[in-house]
């Protein structure tokens, strides 16, 4: 099952490309924000794939001896902060979308007028 062993990497690349396609062809700024979130979730899959060690438990040494080999905790720590930060960055992007709609009356990126100074 050697193909399956690369599945995490393939899914990460797929999510990135699908999200990017959404960003490029988007007709609605809120849809565009969600596409950015899809791109970002590819980084979660990639990080977890890199940190995974076949057959090893999670790096929580509460019920397992402290010298047990576990999966890589460093990438998991990176991902953890990433998820919470993403929520607030998404809120910022959506606030921008709200402002655009107020000022321009549309959410379609193609129908936006020139940025006013």
């Amino acid at each position, binding site marked *: 099952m050697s193909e399956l062993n*690369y599945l995490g990497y393939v899914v990460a690349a797929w999510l990135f490309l699908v999200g990017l396609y959404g960003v490029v062809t988007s007709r609605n700024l809120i849809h565009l924000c969600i596409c950015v979130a899809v791109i970002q979730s590819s980084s979660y899959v990639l990080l977890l794939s890199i940190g995974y060690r076949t057959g090893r438990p999670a790096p929580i040494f509460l019920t397992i001896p402290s*010298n047990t080999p576990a999966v890589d905790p460093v990438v998991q720590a990176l991902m953890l902060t990433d998820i919470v930060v993403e929520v607030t960055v998404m809120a910022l992007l959506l606030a921008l979308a709200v402002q655009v709609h107020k000022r321009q009356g549309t959410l379609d990126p193609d129908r936006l007028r020139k940025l006013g100074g």
Partner: protein
Amino acid sequence: MTRRVRRIFFLLSAVLLIAVFWNGYSKLPPVGALTGTYGDVVNAITVPERHITDAVTAVNFDIRGFDTLGEEFILFTSVMGAVLLMRRQSDEPGGDHEDRARDRVVPNPSDAVRVTALLLVAPTVLFGIYIVAHGQVSPGGGFQGGVILSTAPLLLYLSGTFGQFRRAAPQRLIAISEAIGAAAYILIGGACVALGGSFLQNLLPLGQSASITGGGTVVFIDLGVGLEVSGGIVLILLVYLEELMEEKEG
């Protein structure tokens, strides 16, 4: 650029990107077989040397605490940006967006929802504080617990009205507590310098593994981060709901 051109441009870039991915991946071993020494070292030292049973928390708040400080401030600035953008601006055109479904009736939440939400508030707060304080023992910590805590005022909103939500979480108080949470991280780091160590060096006694005292400063940083994250998310909820309510009234 027309949509057609844009799509062709994307397809060309995608082919290029796949080539880059392919090039990178082909030099990687399959998933689960990578050998990163750093992670193994962290796993080996987290209990004997740091007295922290959750290696992920050890990485976040002890071993690379300085990086997490940066990440926390991304969160802080984006909350600030969102609040600034959602604030009613003086030159803002108002009233040109009309409600296109005026006769739509928004149903009130049922009694079952309201009672359940109200009953869940206290357990949610307790659970949130537990998760914030026990990051060094089991999965949890300031980020996760903070998000859980921020759902408590939202449950109040679900069980009552926006006015009650606003009274339970006054914007000024939430903003101040968010700022205190953010400042706590730097102050803890600065206190370590004042005591003669380096920034965020863990100078407190490392305490007992698998208990709340394990990991020295970690629990205090977790409390600060928990306050910051919960404050930030409640603040975002507040400004968005306020916008919605104004639209309804106006």
